[in-house]
């Protein structure tokens, strides 16, 4: 209970945080999971969670905190409290734009941007990421483009992304797409590099070494 109060009263962050609170059915129901904090500490990018002093400069610096279910500071507090499902189901890591403002300002060297990436990888591995975000689908389309071509083919990426998420929403982008096309900024054909085979051989090996689970 004290944790619940702590999370709520320390809501330094954003007008949006209150609205998001209502959408969290599991936010306060979860039991502590002692292994979760240890698991995060052991990840590249998760080490700094141990050093956090909860000053909140990360949340105060974050341009996207209003759209996050849990602010960066709160996310760190929840990791330490063992709230595995709440953290891994939250939209927060997927809303991080990797602007690194928190990272350069953190007085303890926590590297919250790296932490967000580590949490994205963890929820990708467990398949727990929030259904309320479309970022994972975009990331998958991005990675697929690299696997297929060696480079990112922007048109192909967008087409895969909209096919997998909401094809109707692509309509909203049509004016931007046409504008870019008219100015010769969209390449319709993907160019493939010679080393696609090399890349896939590396990635296959990486998978056998436990890379992508």
């Amino acid at each position, binding site marked *: 209970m004290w944790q619940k109060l702590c999370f709520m009263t320390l809501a330094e962050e954003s007008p949006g945080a209150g609205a998001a609170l209502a959408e969290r059915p599991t936010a306060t129901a979860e039991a502590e999971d002692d292994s979760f904090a240890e698991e995060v500490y052991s990840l*590249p990018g998760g080490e700094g969670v141990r050093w956090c002093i909860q000053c909140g400069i990360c949340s105060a610096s974050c*341009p*996207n905190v209003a*759209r996050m279910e849990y602010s960066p500071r709160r996310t760190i507090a929840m990791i330490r409290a063992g709230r595995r499902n709440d953290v891994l189901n939250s939209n927060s890591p997927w*809303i991080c*734009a*990797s*602007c*690194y*403002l928190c*990272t*350069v300002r953190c007085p303890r060297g926590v*590297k919250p*941007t790296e932490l*967000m*990436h580590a949490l*994205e*990888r963890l929820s*990708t591995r467990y398949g727990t990421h929030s259904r309320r975000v*479309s*970022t*994972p*689908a*975009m*990331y*998958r389309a*991005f*990675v697929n*483009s*690299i696997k297929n071509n*060696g*480079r*990112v*083919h*922007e048109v192909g990426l*967008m087409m895969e*992304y909209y096919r997998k*998420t909401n094809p109707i929403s692509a309509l*909203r*982008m049509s004016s931007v797409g046409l*504008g*870019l096309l008219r*100015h010769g*900024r*969209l390449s319709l054909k993907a*160019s493939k590099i*010679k*080393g696609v085979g*090399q*890349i896939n*051989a*590396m*990635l296959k*090996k*990486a*998978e056998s*070494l*436990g*890379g*992508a689970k």
Partner: protein
Amino acid sequence: MKVYTYFPGCSSSEGTAVAYGESIKAIAGAIGMELVELEDWNCCGSTPYSSTDELGSLCVAARNLALAEKAERDMVTPCSACFTVMNRAKAHLREYPDLRAKVKECLKEAGLEYGGGVRVRHLFEAIYNDIGFGTIAAKMVSPLKGLKVAAYYGCQLVRPESDFDDPNNPKSLEFLVTSLGAEAVPFAMRDRCCGGSLVIPELDLTLGLLHKVFESAAAGGARAIVTVCPLCQTNLDAYQDMVNKKFKTSYNMPVLFFSQLIGVALGMSPKALALDRGLVPAKKVLASYYSAVAATGGGA
């Protein structure tokens, strides 16, 4: 002539920021740089890869590093994301011995090896430190006198780490603007985020960020924005119309790459600098500098 390995990155080579690549090719020789494109380079992996699969993303970045190492030159990239991601990969390979060992095995599958010896630099930083803005200014044909510019750093030029500018209060891009004779306007949002690739999955969130950037640039009286990042340019330029519709504003702010701004001052033609690729036209804002060139008979 200083020689570098050149890593254009996906968007500047033939994608949405093709004008960046084109204008860099146009100015390189004139400012004393020879850029040798890394042969058969692949995507750096960017944030989407390192956010889903650490080892896979390091492999993808390491292939480029391994190819570049053979050339024994500094590698420069004009893309802030490529710059940050490849330096992140280098740091991870240094700091995590277990990942380094695994990546080494993966590289072996591709017949490659990487010893950690490539310096990856942002093209802007290489021009700042190796060429010098003074040298460029000395070659100016058409100083950009009276042009009010908002110098937009975005994020990943000076963050998370920078060995040439202050991550909390960068100045280098303003130095370029003033060296070229233009005026760098006060611009509070100059190192804030444009949303990057989140523009695809989080469009409304990103439009909000862009709106703040335009608001700040306009408050300082800027007529144009100059950037060092392909994503920043695309977001600010291609989505400007959408920002105007959403926030009922009427921004009409051309967004130039720093290479284009240098080229204009050097008197290079709009075509060579791919200025016509901007969705928000830059013609009107830059017209007087071109007529000055025509009057003196200079220019390319």
